[in-house]
């Protein structure tokens, strides 16, 4: 069930605020958090919003913008250390301020449904999902036992769960990501609340699963439920929202009908958010506003890119790799993948979770040895080389992981992380190591002042810059980027992608770019390899893959992708 057609959320003439009965209203909403040492942090600053019947409004912003706190304040879940104040905070005329826990328990679930981001952590892992939904009903004293049982199945059907009788008896861990998220939605809407607040409902999901979940939300809207959608992803929002509120640092910087916000953004921050989204249209352009970071010539210019007779830098031939699961059964995760990576080139590997793309990354790094097939580096043995030979090649192939923090020893500061990579245990580099570390930091857009910082206290973007600095410390020829920008906010992601492009121009380094994000892959890659269930289903230049996909799976992936451009085009067409 993939509702993939992209429609304008509302083809009627839009008004702002949208017409209809006013359900939920906040005027001058402020939230403060009290820290351990008693200092207050102002996280939501005078937010105004209103939700009318049957409409969808979206709160968009990056992490730390206060969008989740705003949403949680609307359901009384801002937290014990939060101080919530507002000129007016009303649900159908009733104030929401100063309500008791028991009052909230009656309201949540019956009048306002709240859908959380990650079903895996939000659902009790030991409880069948049917019981979870049943509890949502019985908490509000709804119906008899038999009625509730029927209602559970009916709700699961409503959210598009096939075989509801079977699924209701299964635990969250036995369900796929998409079914799990739909079960979570089912528990939130079982009592048909008029309002549903969805906090990043699709963030942890693969693109095809995301399309399914968005379809469910769309049907809820069609049935007259009002939705507040919280997301960092403008493309997701474009598919559903009637109105968009853009938040930055706790304030709403722009609010208006979706078509207007997306096509004629007034605030520079909104424009920046839209520009930062990588896609096929942004290839070769800069995503972030800042210029390149090169101030001085740090590296010897890379040799001429023309190595016509040179063997490919990395070449994988028919690589197969399996692992033994906890149940003792051996599963093949990579089933005969071949690729080659030339100098200065970017090969994108795209696939959904479980497609085997991360295992391919580990094999390319020779951290796993393939069961059959092999990987060669410049024509020499690499995956099947002796440890001593591998040692020599390792510094020529670097890696950047999705979560930089876990790839840093928690006992080390930035300086130690970098000098360790620079010296690699060789004392003759030790004297210059600190200076060189400072230079590397400047190359990646940080300053020497960051040398003495703890990664734990840095922002996600800064950490990823440190990880990139470490990767280029050994002057590698290949960098494997394993979901390197997936955990970042879109504007930070834009900066990191720009940095990677700059580095490639400057250093002539090749990237093996692994990501689940099709837009990022298209923006970065020269050639693309599409993986599904351990098989490379399609391989070709980025434009071939994205504009003329041959394999049905690639086509399905591309169809599921919410694309801002399409939404904008549709909106433009409908307003004409």
């Amino acid at each position, binding site marked *: 069930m993939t509702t993939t057609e992209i429609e304008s959320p509302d083809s009627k003439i839009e008004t702002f605020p949208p017409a209809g009965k006013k359900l939920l209203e906040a005027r001058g909403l402020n939230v403060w958090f009290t820290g351990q040492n008693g200092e207050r942090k102002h996280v939501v600053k005078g937010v105004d919003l209103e939700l009318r019947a049957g409409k969808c409004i979206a709160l968009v912003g990056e992490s730390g913008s206060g969008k989740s706190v705003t949403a949680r304040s609307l359901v009384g879940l801002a937290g014990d250390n939060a101080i919530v104040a507002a000129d007016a905070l009303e649900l159908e005329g009733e104030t929401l301020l100063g309500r008791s826990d028991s009052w909230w328990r009656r309201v949540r679930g019956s009048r306002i449904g709240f859908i959380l981001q990650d079903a895996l952590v939000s659902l009790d892992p030991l409880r069948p999902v049917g019981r979870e939904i049943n509890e949502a009903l019985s908490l509000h004293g709804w119906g008899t036992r038999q009625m509730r049982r029927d209602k559970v199945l009916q709700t699961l059907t409503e959210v598009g769960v096939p075989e509801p009788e079977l699924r209701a008896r299964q635990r969250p861990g036995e369900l796929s990501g998409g079914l799990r998220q739909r079960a979570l939605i089912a528990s939130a809407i079982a009592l048909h609340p008029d309002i549903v607040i969805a906090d990043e409902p699709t963030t942890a999901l693969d693109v095809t699963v995301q399309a399914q979940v968005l379809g469910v939300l769309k049907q809820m809207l069609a049935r007259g439920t009002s939705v507040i959608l919280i997301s960092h992803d403008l493309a997701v929002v474009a598919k559903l929202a009637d109105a968009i509120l853009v938040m930055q640092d706790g304030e709403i910087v722009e609010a208006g009908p979706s078509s207007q916000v997306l096509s004629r953004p007034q605030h520079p921050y909104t424009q920046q958010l839209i520009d930062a989204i990588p896609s096929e249209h942004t290839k070769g352009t800069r995503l972030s506003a800042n210029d390149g970071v090169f101030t001085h010539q740090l590296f010897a210019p890379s040799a001429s890119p023309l190595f016509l007779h040179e063997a490919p830098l990395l070449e994988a031939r028919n690589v197969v790799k399996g692992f033994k699961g906890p149940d003792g059964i051996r599963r093949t995760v990579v089933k005969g993948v071949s690729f080659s990576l030339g100098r200065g080139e970017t090969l994108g590997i795209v696939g959904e979770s479980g497609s085997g793309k991360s295992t391919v990354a580990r094999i390319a*790094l020779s*951290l796993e040895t393939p069961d059959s097939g092999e990987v060669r580096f410049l024509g020499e043995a690499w995956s099947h080389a002796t440890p001593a030979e591998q*040692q*020599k090649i*390792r*510094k020529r*192939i*670097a*890696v950047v*992981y999705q*979560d930089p*923090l*876990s*790839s*840093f*020893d*928690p*006992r080390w500061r930035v300086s130690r992380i970098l000098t*360790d*990579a620079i010296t*690699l*245990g060789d004392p003759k580099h030790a004297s210059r190591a600190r200076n060189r570390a400072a230079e590397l930091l400047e190359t990646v857009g940080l300053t020497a002042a960051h040398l*003495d*910082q*703890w990664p*734990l*206290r840095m922002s996600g973007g800064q950490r990823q810059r440190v990880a990139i600095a*470490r990767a280029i410390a*050994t002057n590698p020829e290949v960098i494997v980027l394993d979901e390197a920008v997936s955990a970042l906010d879109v504007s930070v992601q834009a900066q990191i992608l720009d940095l990677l492009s700059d580095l490639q121009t400057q250093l002539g380094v090749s990237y093996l770019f692994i990501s689940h994000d099709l837009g990022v892959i298209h923006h970065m890659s020269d050639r693309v390899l599409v993986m599904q269930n351990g098989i490379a289903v399609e391989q070709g230049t980025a434009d071939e893959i994205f504009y003329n996909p041959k394999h049905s799976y690639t086509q399905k992936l591309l169809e599921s992708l919410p694309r801002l451009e399409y939404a904008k085009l549709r909106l433009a067409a409908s307003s004409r």
Partner: protein
Amino acid sequence: MTDVTTDIRPAAGRAGLVSRLAIVRVPVSIVLSALAVLFFVIAAAAPSVLSTHSAFDTDLLSSLTPPAADHWLGTDDIGRDLYSRIIWGTRGSLLIGVGAMAVAFAGATVLGFTAALAPKWVAQPINRILEILLAFPTLLLALLFVALLGPSATSLLISVGLGTTPGYARLIRAQTLKVKQSGYVEAARALGHPWQIVFIQHIAPNAFRPLVGLVALGIGQSVVWASGLSFLGLGVAPPSPEWGALLEAGKASITVAWWLEIFPGLAIVLVALSFTQIGQYIQDLAEGNAR
């Protein structure tokens, strides 16, 4: 909550254990425990500073005196001052505790790292043996070693140490396995560090980090076990004022001289409690620090 705030903020933002100790409020129980440990350490290092009488001089005229101004904790059946005997006995008891812990950790480190990192054909047998040993109660295991080595202070130390080794070995193994799979170990391998360097720089220190508190905890435990064995007559022989031996000696006169059992027992409890408190506290800090 009554907290003693020792707020010595370091100038720079150090996030190490030391600075954590400085920034957080240190609970009163930890301050008291630290004072108790300090007292016993002084008693062990220089007993004459704290003692009021000789630990060995007999004074038959004042035998079995109850606690009084002259003899703070009373005297035993041949008139020796109990307080001074406890002070003089501290060194023996603490040394056995610390020594046993050292033996246990040394053994556990070797076994734990091997069980986690060695090839399967080495690691598997070690794991099975550790599992079998874990099935025996610690005291029983220690008794077994005493029986093999004969009763003496040294054999007590070794026995208690070996008796507690399997438990610590399993902990170190589990920690090592966890660290081995961490991102930074993989990152170090990908950088091209040989495995010895990866082990010394990353695996060993990070595997030990959450276990530092266990050392203090273990010392307290070992003192209790060593005293227990001495009480059973399997440790230090009578003229020595080791605490377990004091308990053993006082057993005969327990109906007329309660203090001979109560005070040495309290000393053992106090040491065990203080070390456990401090160990638990360090443990919490280390875990809080390690994300």
